[in-house]
């Protein structure tokens, strides 16, 4: 195994699960998240010399996966999943370890965020990048990252509050 392959293998082993969780949180479909993440890592392998020099290669993978998802979403609008019942179940099924009420509501809200805000949230929250690294990964100014995060958190918070109010009204 050459040096580049070893580097990629180490990178993959270290970042595969955090990247997968970030994508899963954003698309909320386990099978789709697996496909998108694996494909994004494959692209990273194919362009490894470039990706290895990226300020945050894991962020590159997540962004690539999410951009691919936009294409999927658009392409699949007129189509149905092959196994419609199974796909629907996958869409609704909570991810591993989700035992909280906040999970599904916030996850849905996360998916409705504008792309840039969603990218900032998944990089900051799931890859644990700081503002400076997130900004470098997205090619934005740190202040812009803060602004996107602020708006995203506000939107997520509003969704959660609305949900709480709806729950109150039901009681």
């Amino acid at each position, binding site marked *: 195994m050459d040096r580049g392959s070893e580097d990629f293998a180490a990178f993959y082993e270290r970042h595969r699960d955090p990247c997968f969780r970030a994508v899963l949180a954003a698309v909320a479909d386990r099978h789709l998240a697996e496909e998108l993440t*694996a494909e994004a890592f494959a692209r990273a392998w194919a362009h490894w010399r470039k990706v290895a020099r990226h300020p945050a290669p894991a962020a590159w993978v997540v962004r690539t996966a999410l951009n691919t998802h936009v294409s999927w979403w*658009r392409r699949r609008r007129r189509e149905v999943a*092959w196994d419609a019942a199974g796909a629907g179940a996958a869409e609704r099924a909570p991810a591993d370890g*989700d035992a*909280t009420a906040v999970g599904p509501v916030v996850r849905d809200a996360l998916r409705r965020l*504008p792309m840039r805000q969603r990218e900032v949230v998944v990089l900051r929250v799931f890859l644990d990048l700081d*503002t400076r690294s997130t900004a470098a990964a997205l090619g934005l100014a740190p202040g812009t990252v803060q602004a996107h995060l602020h708006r995203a958190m506000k939107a997520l918070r509003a969704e*959660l509050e609305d949900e709480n109010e709806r729950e109150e009204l039901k009681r």
Partner: protein
Amino acid sequence: MSTDDFDTLAPGDEELLAGLHRSVAGAALTAGTADVVALGRRMRNRRRAVVAGIGTSAAAIVAAIGVLAPSAGTGTGGGRDLTIQDAGFTMREHSDGTVFLTVDQAFSPTLLQAALDKAGVPSAVLVEQLPAGWDATRPIQCKDTAAVHAPPMPVSGIGLAVVDGRTEYRITKSAVPAGQFVTLVQFRGRPGTVWDSFGLRTGRQSTCEPEYYPDPKPAA
């Protein structure tokens, strides 16, 4: 997760962030390094093939059409189970009438159309060379016209799945409504970039005016 450099944290934000984390905690990617590397290698080879202008040979086309003849069927369970490959696309027809199709970045629409016709799939296959300046990495579709347009409702039995990292189109022949056609349009942009548009269309697509898919509506 560190929130040290969060600009501001409102009451409840910590809980919100923790909830997001918990919602995917423990989820793990099943693909191994070897799977990902194999997929990456295939992607790289396909790109190189297109850039090098490697197409489908006439001999392969003839051979592939020949394989579709009923006498070539391997037969499973009393029905046909046919496969053609190595001609820029792979097509399998199961005995239950389901057709499985994958296409490469360089395939002959004439050959594929002939194969689908032979299999009895109402279909239209086009390859559109995009004008200079178009970006085939973005989703593209044919503009609707009065004669050819998207059907009002999606149909169960026509779809796609990703198998070994490749998109596989799956077509149940009996699911195609009368007057509709399984339509595959490959938009070719600058070397190495293509966009495949697949789905049912009402009316048979014979020409195509490309348009980018509209951007998704921003969140409310």
